[in-house]
């Protein structure tokens, strides 16, 4: 029973991590594509998106299988684990600071308005619009590159590249469908909560695989991953709580205890 849970546990966490990371990045890409489509026209915007998605798929196909087949497993796990650790810590650090109110949250409405303003300033064209194509391509490609890194690192280290790629593809399709139905930027999505969850999983996978790469003996093998998620979750919660209290204490000290802050 325990082995079954262990065997099934890490693919579930793997799929959840890849799906959430992909969804978050594609929500950001969707904001850019919507701004381009509304201001410059949809044809060139969709062409930019299609080319970006094709380039990203090619990256996974070209880099993924050789990594799995040619690089020794412990070396692959060490490098991939290290990259996941760094990547995950960056995400988690930002999510903690945003949750504590020390960093502005990602505002899709503000980003959309900024993109629309910038794109409206560029000279209009007839036929194919190079500006629209380039902005849509760059937006999808750069956001998608993070997805590719997550798919390649998590997929190759756990020898489940196909499953990771499928989870990412499902997330992309879902965000596109929801975006088409809603026909606006997805500002209601709880991005920071999702980024916190993704950061926790990436740091946990990174710790586990880097540890495997240097021959750490993990109690319960794969079962250590959800335990690591729980431990880092507690640490993140504690950091957010301490930072919030520290910020409130600092604000009270500046304005006087109990005195309201004028708007």
């Amino acid at each position, binding site marked *: 029973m325990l082995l079954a849970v262990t065997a099934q546990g890490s693919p579930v966490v793997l799929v959840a991590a890849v799906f959430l990371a992909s969804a978050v990045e594609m929500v950001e890409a969707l904001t850019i594509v919507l701004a381009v489509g509304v201001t410059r026209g949809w044809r060139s915007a969709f062409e930019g998106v299609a080319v970006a998605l094709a380039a990203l798929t090619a990256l996974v196909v070209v880099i993924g299988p050789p990594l799995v087949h040619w690089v020794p497993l412990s070396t692959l796990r060490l490098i991939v684990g290290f990259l996941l650790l760094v990547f995950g*810590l960056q995400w988690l650090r930002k999510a903690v600071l945003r949750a504590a109110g020390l960093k502005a949250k990602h505002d899709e409405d503000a980003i959309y308005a900024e993109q629309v303003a910038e794109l409206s300033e560029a000279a209009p064209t007839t036929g194919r619009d190079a500006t629209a194509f380039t902005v849509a391509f760059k937006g999808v490609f750069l956001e998608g590159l993070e997805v590719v890194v997550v798919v390649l690192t998590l997929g190759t280290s756990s020898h489940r590249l196909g499953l990771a790629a499928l989870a990412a593809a499902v997330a992309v399709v879902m965000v596109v469908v929801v975006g088409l139905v809603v026909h606006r930027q997805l500002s209601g999505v709880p991005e920071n909560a999702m980024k916190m969850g993704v950061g926790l999983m990436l*740091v946990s996978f990174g710790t586990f695989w880097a540890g495997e790469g240097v021959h*750490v*003996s993990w*109690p319960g093998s794969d079962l250590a991953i959800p335990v690591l998620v729980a431990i880092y979750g507690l640490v993140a919660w504690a950091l957010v709580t301490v930072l919030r209290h520290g910020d409130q204490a600092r604000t009270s000290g500046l304005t006087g205890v109990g005195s309201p802050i004028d708007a």
Partner: protein
Amino acid sequence: MVRLPWLRAFGRFWWDFLIGDTPELFIGAIVVVGAAALLCTVPGARHAAAFVLPALVAGLLSLSVWRASRSRPN
């Protein structure tokens, strides 16, 4: 000469992607994984490393977050 600006832009992209404005996380991760690797060379310490490694990672995260909170203007 034509390739150099492209190479520089490529290098800058990966620098921003991996290191960005948090070099302490990149360097800290090297130190943490290196420490775990060293610990695993000690006979019988591979199990202990399973507790030391997450503790070091949690410490690294806390240090980076604390630095960011201290650098925030009042």
